[in-house]
């Protein structure tokens, strides 16, 4: 038998399977976002509404002490599910969410496309699913800080300021509403942002797209409503759909006269469409010359 001249050294490494293979992607995404100019300042600003609402909770428990400041109506300081719904579906918060997406989400995939980095990821022990999970987790990180964390903090501080568990006993389902709405909002924006980010290689272009699609959906909704005089055109607006579902989850009256599950269907459809496109767009680089 012929013997080849070369010797083969057996590889003594390990074929490792990490428990959270997506974590390094998330970690890098969060780190790079915080490195962006003005992001820390901006992120601090996005937490302002939460601070205002928290102060509101404090004042609601000390109405007598703050009487000198209050003139007339103090109903808005009633801490109840409506108070929470107002925080979670107010336009300013949704605007801040979109801005956070512009800062932290626009470059998530587009930067990798621009730098041809997908081939570096997929030549490593990383599945496409892990890659997308890692990227989505960056969005979850920022948006849950803006939604879930304040929601839980509001409930906790309401009980701390009141010195009893009455609030929790009165609305035991509220914590579930907070979790459900936060997850829904975050999941939707994760799909939405990743889809936009996978559309182009230019971060600025993607930023405009994230911002533009959200706001133009609202503008087109208003235009079509005026032209066709139909409430169903509310479904064209991303903001309106989220507000509708938010109202239902916090057991409040829906702000618009359309069935809430239509809004849910629109949101789910956008997520499914995004998942389908992401599956097609995020793949190994194919060479055609």
């Amino acid at each position, binding site marked *: *038998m*012929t*013997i*080849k*001249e*070369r*010797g*083969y*050294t*057996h*590889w003594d*490494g*390990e*074929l*490792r*399977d*990490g428990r959270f*293979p997506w974590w*390094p*992607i998330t*970690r*890098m995404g969060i780190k*790079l976002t915080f*490195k962006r100019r003005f992001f820390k300042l901006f992120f601090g600003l996005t937490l302002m509404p939460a601070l205002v609402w928290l102060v509101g909770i404090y004042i609601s428990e000390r109405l007598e002490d703050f009487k000198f400041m209050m003139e007339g109506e103090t109903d808005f300081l009633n801490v109840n599910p409506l108070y929470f719904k107002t925080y979670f579906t107010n336009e300013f918060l949704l605007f801040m969410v979109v801005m956070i997406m512009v800062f932290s989400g626009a470059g998530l995939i587009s*930067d990798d496309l621009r*730098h*041809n*980095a997908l*081939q*570096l*990821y*997929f*030549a*490593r*022990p*990383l*599945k496409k699913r892990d890659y997308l999970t890692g990227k989505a987790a960056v969005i979850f990180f920022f948006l849950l800080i803006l939604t879930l964390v304040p929601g839980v903090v509001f409930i906790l501080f309401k009980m701390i300021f009141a010195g009893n568990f009455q609030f929790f006993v009165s609305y035991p389902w509220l914590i579930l509403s907070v979790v459900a709405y936060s997850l829904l909002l975050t999941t939707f924006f994760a799909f939405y942002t990743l889809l936009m980010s996978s559309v182009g290689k230019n971060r600025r272009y993607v930023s405009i797209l994230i911002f533009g699609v959200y706001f133009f959906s609202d503008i087109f909704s208003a235009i079509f409503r005026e032209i066709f005089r139909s409430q169903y055109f509310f479904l064209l607006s991303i903001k309106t759909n989220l507000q509708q579902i938010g109202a239902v989850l916090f057991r409040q009256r829906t702000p618009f006269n359309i069935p809430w599950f239509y809004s849910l269907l629109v949101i789910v459809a956008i997520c499914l469409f995004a998942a389908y496109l992401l599956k097609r767009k995020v*793949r*190994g*680089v*194919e*060479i*055609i*010359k």
Partner: protein
Amino acid sequence: MLIRCLLVEKEGQGSGDHQVTAVIQTQNLSKWYGNVLGLNDVTLEIEAGITGILGPNGAGKSTFLKLITGQIKSNIGSVTIDGQRVWNNFSLFSKIGFCPEQDSFFEEMTGWQFLTSLLRLYHFSTAEIEEKADKALEIVELTEDKHRAVRSYSRGMRQRLKVAQSIAHDPAIIILDEPLNGLDPLGRRKIIRLIKEYKGEGRTIVVSSHVLPEIEAMTNQIILIHQGKIFAQGDIHYIRDLIETHPHIISIKCSDPRQLAQKFIQHDFVLKVNFDQKKGSLLVETNNRDKFFGLLPVLFVENRIEVEEITSPDDNLQAVFDYLIGK
């Protein structure tokens, strides 16, 4: 025409303890992109050591490398590494290092950050990551520049950093797609030396290039690929011999082409002489380049002919391929 060269093998001294089996095997591997055929029915075996994939641009080299690194899925056929299927076998990717042809950097990161962020994907501990990143940067001689942003790196440094990311996790199989592209001679020498050192450690290295001397400087084992087909595999000397004996055209611009033609035509290794009226040059076709280039300076000196330019229009890989496939 499919030419399969015999692998150069040495008879072993012992009883066969060191018998080598193929590390990478492909079976009827085919890949197409719409109507474009990227790779066509490739069946081959690659063993430990350095193997050069040689072919002109668009021959299917990168497609082949992406298939064996499991980045794209073949339409037909299979790839195995150490007997395991590659496609969707993600844990297997731990033992593969891939250096892509195109630049793939996060420009805002430093070289060190770039390496450590990629090493994290292998689930090493922080200490291991730092150690491996430092080691890889040292190997490619980028230690001094490791804290500079990648965007400020020169072409050669970028190429070396690309190689560093492919070797940092200490893989058994290293796939390098055109690693010498765009490098200056010094940079080339560095990378070639590095690749050769790695071979010495018993690893399997697959290097692609469209430049024959580049591959020649690294290995004797080559695979010739053209239009998505493998049509020669084996020892580079055999391929070299084919190149040496196939008719070559040499173009000479000189002060007296007619006299030179007269002298050349007397020799049997000169098959044909022609005049290119437009360029004013003499075209000589020979089947023995060594004898031809031995005679050339003698004729210049003896006949006092002044030379302006000597070129070999078909001394390139495409010409070799054309010859080998019988065009």
